[in-house]
């Protein structure tokens, strides 16, 4: 074997066993730099997201929309932009907003969302008349099942401890069938699937969802007969925001969290693809070389 071949083999082996921290630096740069630059790319709304947006957009004034915050800080960067966009659209449609959580970690996020979106952008909305924070209740799918039968049996007070019957917008709520649409945000357990199985199907209640990108493929089988539409990951959020801006141009100058993530996601996907291609090229070069140096195939 010549010196050139030895050097080349050595280089390939070194590249194959590259320190993973080098890959980490590339990934970090791919995520951070686009975020700092604040660049964004053109987005188009796919049919599964469009179906959800159109459904909300055709809700009559005063429709009751239940939003369940079934996520935590881990997935908030992906899910929160969806929640914000849906809230803005629901308020434009003059819907009544009922917010709750079947995840303990979602309870705080309801409060934060009320502060950041409802109170700061729509100060004219009144608690108890236009929106209500019902907070978290334990019980997972058991809770959902009971809410289909009797809502107030499980929620006798709101999150602040106010008696549920003293809240004006709760007067005509007997069970989940009184809602025009239920949104579940978050793809874990309990989440969209449990809302479909224990509320949507038995109660014939329309369910819409927003989940992480990794959970979305698992929920596709429920669309369109059991799920009105679905937003999957930051891409789903960005598509919904795009639809929102097209329908309500007043939002065009507002920073949209989902769309601002897309450049970062695009660059990081490219970096991952680059490493996959590089890994495969090195693998095939190494394999061919090994085959050619085996006994019988040695040159």
């Amino acid at each position, binding site marked *: 074997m010549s010196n050139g071949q030895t050097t080349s083999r050595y280089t390939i082996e070194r590249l194959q066993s590259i320190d*993973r921290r080098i*890959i980490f630096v590339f990934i970090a740069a791919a995520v951070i730099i686009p975020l700092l630059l604040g660049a964004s790319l053109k987005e188009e709304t796919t049919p599964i997201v469009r179906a959800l947006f159109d459904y909300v957009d055709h809700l009559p004034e005063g429709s009751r929309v239940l939003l369940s915050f079934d996520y935590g800080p*881990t997935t908030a960067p992906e899910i929160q932009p969806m929640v914000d966009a849906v809230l803005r659209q629901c308020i434009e449609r003059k819907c009544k907003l009922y917010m709750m959580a079947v995840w303990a970690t979602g309870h705080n996020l309801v409060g934060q969302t009320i502060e950041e979106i409802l109170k700061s952008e729509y100060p004219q909305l009144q608690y108890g008349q236009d929106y209500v924070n019902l907070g978290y209740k334990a019980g997972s799918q058991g809770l959902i099942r009971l809410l289909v039968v009797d809502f107030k049996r499980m929620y006798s007070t709101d999150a602040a401890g106010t008696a549920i019957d003293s809240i004006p917008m709760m007067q005509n709520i007997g069970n989940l069938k009184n809602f025009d649409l239920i949104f579940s945000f978050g793809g874990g357990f309990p989440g969209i699937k449990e809302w479909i199985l224990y509320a949507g199907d038995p109660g014939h209640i329309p369910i819409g969802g927003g989940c992480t990108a990794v959970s979305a493929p698992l929920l596709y089988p429920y669309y369109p007969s059991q799920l009105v539409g679905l937003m999957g990951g930051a891409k789903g959020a960005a598509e919904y925001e795009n639809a929102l801006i097209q329908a309500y141009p007043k939002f065009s100058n507002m920073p949209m969290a989902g769309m601002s993530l897309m450049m970062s996601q695009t660059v990081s996907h490219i970096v*991952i693809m680059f490493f996959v291609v590089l890994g495969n090229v090195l693998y095939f070069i190494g394999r061919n070389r090994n085959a050619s140096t085996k006994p019988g195939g040695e040159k």
Partner: protein
Amino acid sequence: MKRTVPLLITLVVGAALIIADFVPHRPFGTLGDDFSLYFDIIAVFAFILGGGNLVRVHIMKLSKKRKDWPFSIVTLAGFFIMLAAGLLKIGNPDDIKGDVAALGSLFSDLYISIFTPLQASMFALLAFFVGSASYRAFRAKNKEATILLVSAFLILLGRTPLGLWLTEGIPDSISFLELPNLANWILDVPNLAGQRAIMIGIALGVISMSLRVILGVERTYLGQDND
């Protein structure tokens, strides 16, 4: 006796809930809802049980100075501080009557300042490990792996605005070749078929396992303890 009673409870409750689904009349019609309520009550008690177990395990670890015992101090401190902040509603602007998560309360501050960045950091690590694992393990070693690799590339490109930008010039007659359309096709057709097959398989497995548990054929959930 220790095994017979749980087996009988399982048989009676399991059979009653199956009947409740097919007979909408009293007393069976309301059984499902009643048991859901019992489930909720048990779920609340499970929090106490879980918390108690966490404390017990870490106190044992501390007392015996097992490996990584200093981390147990952090766990116990985190647990008791959050518990006190939530139960006593320390710093809550609406006092003890207010929402436990009201902004300005200690519970909310701990959630926003410590819990949120910790959880977000843990999840963010995935991006680095996905990148590293893709480089080392995602190889087109055979036909199946190559199909998976090509699909992954189409999804990676098609699920970003770059995919749209790269192929938006394609004529309408062959617009199915646009990367976002190809990515959507993969999700809508092969993924959907696979997911449905898995779901049907799981459902059949759950039915079979449930029947085994109800009829007492499957007893591993009772543990190894014999009468």
